[in-house]
């Protein structure tokens, strides 16, 4: 009896050990939130094991087009997941979060020495500022729309992605810039949370690339209350479903 139990346990354990990990590609801005989601999912499904690969949306799309073995792809835009479905490389796709754009100037104070946390910060801004490359990053595209409406001749520095904008600002090389709210949940200094109706928005979509059962379960879990709480706690809005 004991031997038989031991046998069953051994088979069970080895089946877990041999389960192929779900490989998830994620746009850099969502990586930390995804890790929290995966850990939360794992706490409910102990057999879930996963690997996360993060890069920019463009790079990951390229890799997937060339047959990279990903099961899920969390993009920072809606264009590429839709493209993957059209190309037959993804089974389905859906919105999982809306990114929020923040104009952040940590050391800026107004005439009275107070922080500014409304649109006047951006309206009166004339120094050099940074945003992500609009060709590569949806957050950059949103920022560019605002910059074009403003059309003053402040010098603009393009970063590779929102993380790099954050780097430029936090090292003090540039006084302000457009970052994703998700990069930091509480911004020190002056900042302006850009209302969603001022730009096209950053709709982030996820594509399901394989028919691995664990990948499908995790994909469906994104719509659960737990997942939505984690997503909003990390500086994203929920898609209007």
């Amino acid at each position: 009896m004991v031997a038989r139990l031991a046998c069953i346990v051994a088979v069970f354990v080895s089946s877990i050990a041999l389960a192929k990990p779900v490989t998830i590609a994620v746009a850099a801005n969502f990586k930390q939130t995804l890790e929290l989601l995966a850990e939360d999912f794992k706490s409910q499904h102990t057999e879930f094991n996963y690997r996360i690969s993060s890069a920019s949306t463009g790079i990951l799309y390229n890799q997937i087009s060339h047959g990279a073995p990903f099961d899920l792809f969390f993009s920072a835009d809606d264009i590429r997941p839709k493209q993957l479905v059209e190309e037959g490389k993804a089974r389905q796709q859906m919105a999982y979060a809306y990114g929020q754009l923040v104009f952040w100037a940590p050391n800026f104070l107004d005439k009275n020495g107070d922080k500014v946390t409304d649109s006047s910060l951006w309206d009166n801004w004339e120094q050099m500022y940074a945003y992500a490359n609009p060709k590569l990053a949806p957050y950059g595209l949103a920022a560019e729309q605002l910059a074009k409406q403003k059309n003053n001749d402040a010098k603009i520095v393009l970063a590779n992605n929102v993380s790099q904008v954050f780097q430029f600002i936090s090292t003090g090389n540039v006084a302000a810039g457009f970052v994703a709210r998700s990069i930091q949940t509480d911004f020190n200094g002056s900042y302006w949370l850009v209302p969603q109706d001022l730009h096209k928005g950053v709709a982030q979509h996820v594509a399901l690339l394989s028919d691995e059962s664990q990948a499908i379960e995790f994909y469906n879990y994104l719509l659960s209350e737990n997942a939505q709480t984690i997503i909003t706690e990390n500086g994203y809005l929920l898609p209007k479903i």
Partner: protein
Amino acid sequence: MSDAEYQAIILSVKLATISCLILLLLGTPLAWWLARSQSKLKHIVEAVVALPIVLPPTVLGFYLLIGFAPNSFLGQWWQAITGSQLAFSFSGLVFASCLYSLPFVVQPIQSAFKQIEPGVLDAAKVLRMPRWKQLLSVELPLAKSGFIVAMVLGFAHTLGEFGVVLMIGGNIPGETQVIAIALFDHVESLNFAAAHRLALVLLGISFFALLLTYGVTGAKKRVGSVGVKF
């Protein structure tokens, strides 16, 4: 070729040329000292010079970004002298390239100085040739091939510089958008035709630079010994 691509190519060539000239001016005395010195400090300096070969360029770039900050010593000093900032400027790229390509210029010149027969130098001494004249009319001409290798490698290495520029450049057309960055942009935004064009330009320039090097030195051994990496 679009205007932006021409601009990127011209900017890269300008950056590589200026960095190369500065490195030759600064690197030659350093290489000579390393070749001739018996000092205990020598190996430490040699190791420091070779560090950019080992450090990942993005890491080097990240520390430069911190170093260029307006509240750092270097950033303040530059601001005081020129009134402009180092990050996101062409001057900043020149500064970074000089650091990044230093071993590629110093090492070939150093080994060329080292390979001069001691007998030749002794003969010059016997002829009562003054030290400066020895240097100008004996040592420098004999080390000529080392200088050519250093120039070509320094130039080619700076031309392909990517990680460092990505961290400190800010992708400004005509100021910091070099070939490698423009190429990366095209690949990321799925504009493959433009990417292929720029890649061909880079390949062409690099191939001829290396062909020239091998032609001049006539031996692969020496180029290998200065740590060329692809």
